[in-house]
């Protein structure tokens, strides 16, 4: 019964924040902060309660389920379910939500209530997407998170925000419609073959599909998720949307909306169309690598700091795409870790840019430089997160990227080798950013206030999580394993004749058939 509350809290919180906006600018901030904290408390309670159950091999596929028929005639049910994967992403959503609210504490001055209304509705849309297991409900939340972000960018954005907002909306909406086609196609094919017309994920899983239609339906889903990830040819909306969005908007945009695409692929795309996904895998991997290299090269060339960071997130998410389509346990775990790490580190970088922009009212790299002398605190934070984004071992991104490349190497050696070049290019743009912003002579003679208490807490919290995820990622890995195991089991079940390179999925299936005792090689944890 708790799942609908998890979605509803933010939903109602948004309305409350808007209403509270009437009373004064401070109120909505506190309302949304309280709502998010309650939401966090709920999630942590769930995690603590179910953590023990995560590692049991006899665990069911879902931690919590909530299924309520919504429009029975058409087979639509209000079906929410949570497993390890979605729990992690919900925690990330909540954390970045709180960071978003904190960072725009006094950045947003006019129509504060309305701002927080949009912010919380984006979060509730994203939470809904991570929990929905009814394809129609999934698409409903998919659309729901889109509109408030459009208004967030359009109303509180920077210079040419209208262009960016419309471009973002068209890209996502058009691709969303393709996904809708895929959903409906699947719905009818399933209905014809089994007589049961339903959008329920579990029942739709096994639908027998002829290869060509499966490919087309899968492509429908792929385009929608590829636009969100973003995959290279479909990425141009991201730099504009990021540069023009207010800080909280771009934190949520980078942190959450990019993950929705990747989550969608793991949850819906590959399990629903396993054969088509694997025949499409080489193409997707090439796109992933292209994303890594192209994103990195362009990031280096940008003169607008926020645009630079936007392109870096294209490069990072290229790794995630690579990991998903390698589809073995290492690559998938790596993809999940990168999703979390990217959310944290790139979110932090956007907050940093927001703070810098608040001080010097520009994002032009040409005018920055030598800011370490006036803002050492900001400099250290910037250095920390730049190092995280270039994949320094000991920080979160490296764990993810290493696992992905390790997994991809088992599937496709050339892909892993070329993707590793991404490490070098990442170093180039990260250090280039640091040089242009913090090091070098202070040409403009900036005399700026260093990090204040609020900003310091944001950076400290994010630094803590990036460091812990980098040094001791085990709790996250075990939770993600719960989610990934049942997704891999679905795919393995459908691919009884598992294609050659998908050995790990088949092997996984054999592991789970004879319930293996909790694996003995778990070293004694301190």
């Amino acid at each position, binding site marked *: 019964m708790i799942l609908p509350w998890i979605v509803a809290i933010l939903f109602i919180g948004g309305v409350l924040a808007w209403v509270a906006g009437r009373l004064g600018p401070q109120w909505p901030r506190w309302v949304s902060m309280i709502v998010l904290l309650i939401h966090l408390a709920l999630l942590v309670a769930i995690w603590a309660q179910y953590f023990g159950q995560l590692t049991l091999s006899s665990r069911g596929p879902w931690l919590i389920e909530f299924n309520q028929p919504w429009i029975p005639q058409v087979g639509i049910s209000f079906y929410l379910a949570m497993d390890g994967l979605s729990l992690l992403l919900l925690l990330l959503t909540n954390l970045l939500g709180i960071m978003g609210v904190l960072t725009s504490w006094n950045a947003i001055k006019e*129509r504060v209530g309305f701002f927080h209304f949009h912010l919380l509705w984006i979060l509730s849309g994203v939470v809904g997407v991570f929990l929905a297991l009814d394809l129609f409900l999934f698409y409903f939340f998919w659309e729901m998170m889109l509109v408030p972000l459009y208004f967030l960018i*359009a*109303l509180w954005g920077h210079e*040419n925000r*209208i262009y960016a907002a419309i471009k973002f909306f068209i890209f996502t909406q058009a691709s969303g419609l393709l996904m809708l086609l895929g959903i409906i196609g699947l719905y009818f094919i399933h209905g014809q073959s089994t007589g049961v017309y339903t959008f329920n994920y579990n029942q739709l899983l096994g639908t027998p599909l002829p290869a060509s239609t499966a490919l087309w339906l899968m492509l429908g889903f792929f385009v929608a998720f590829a636009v969100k990830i973003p995959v290279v040819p479909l990425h141009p909306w991201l730099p504009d949307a990021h540069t023009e969005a207010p800080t909280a908007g771009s934190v949520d945009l980078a942190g959450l909306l990019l993950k929705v695409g990747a989550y969608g692929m793991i949850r819906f795309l590959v399990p629903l169309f396993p054969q088509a996904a694997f025949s499409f895998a080489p193409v997707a991997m090439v796109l992933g690598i292209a994303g890594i290299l192209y994103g990195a090269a362009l990031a280096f060339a940008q003169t607008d700091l926020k645009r630079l960071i936007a392109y870096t997130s294209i490069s990072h998410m290229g790794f995630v795409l690579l990991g998903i389509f390698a589809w073995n346990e290492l690559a998938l775990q790596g993809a999940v870790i990168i999703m979390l790490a990217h959310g944290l580190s790139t979110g932090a970088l956007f907050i940093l840019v927001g703070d810098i922009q608040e001080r010097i009212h520009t994002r032009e790299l040409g005018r920055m430089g030598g800011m370490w002398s006036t803002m050492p605190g900001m400099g250290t934070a910037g250095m920390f997160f730049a190092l995280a984004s270039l994949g320094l071992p000991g920080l979160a991104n490296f764990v993810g990227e290493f696992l992905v490349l390790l997994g991809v190497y088992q599937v496709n050696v050339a892909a892993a080798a070329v993707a590793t070049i991404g490490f070098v290019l990442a170093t180039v743009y990260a250090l280039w950013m640091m040089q242009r912003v913090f090091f070098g002579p202070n040409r403009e003679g900036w005399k700026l206030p260093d990090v204040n208490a609020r900003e310091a807490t944001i950076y400290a919290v994010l630094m803590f999580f990036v460091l812990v995820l980098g040094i001791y990622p085990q709790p996250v890995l075990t939770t993600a394993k719960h989610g990934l195991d049942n997704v891999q089991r679905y795919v393995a079940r459908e691919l009884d004749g598992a294609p050659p390179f998908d050995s790990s999925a088949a092997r996984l299936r054999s592991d789970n058939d004879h319930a293996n005792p909790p694996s003995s090689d778990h070293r004694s944890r301190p």
Partner: protein
Amino acid sequence: MEAVFYISGAIAVLSTIGVITRLNAVHALLYLVVSLIAVALVFYSLGAPFVAALEVIIYAGAIIVLFVFVIMLLNLGPQGSREERQWLSLKTWVGPAVLGVILIAELVYTFGLQPSHPAGVSVVEPQQVSIALFGPYVLGVEMASLLLLAGLVGAYHLGQRDDFRRPAQPEAEESKTGTRSDYLAHEGRALSSSTEKGAGSEIGPARLKGDEQ
């Protein structure tokens, strides 16, 4: 009886050609009356006397008279046909004529496809028509009456000739007797002023519309 059909058909075609080629409006209308009467004869020859009567009474009688009435009202006089002459150069006839001929050719071809069944074999008495009219088609009749009412109201409203019945009255900015270009200019001014006013009143959030390129 076929002779009546063919002769009146030919007359109808010739007179309608006459209608569209006349320069003077009244001449055209007279040709139109001839054409309608010819068509009425055709109806009669096809065994539809009631409709033939209707055609003559309503179509030729009422509608064409209405035309003449309006022409009288507009009292164009000779300068009307002078305008017509410089409008109707031969060049303007070519396009539509070609189109018309193609259309006729297509219709002739299509009607010639099936073996055509003789029409007008039996006379349809007016009694039959009226039974059918107030039988299954009673709804149609009511709708027709509604249509007529609408036409009546519309014509009455549009017919208000208040603005040009009082030419001498000095309206504040309406220049009644200006030529067409004045009118357009005046229209233009009114239109643009409204948009400035529209932009001025910042109804939506100022930033949304304000500096949209």
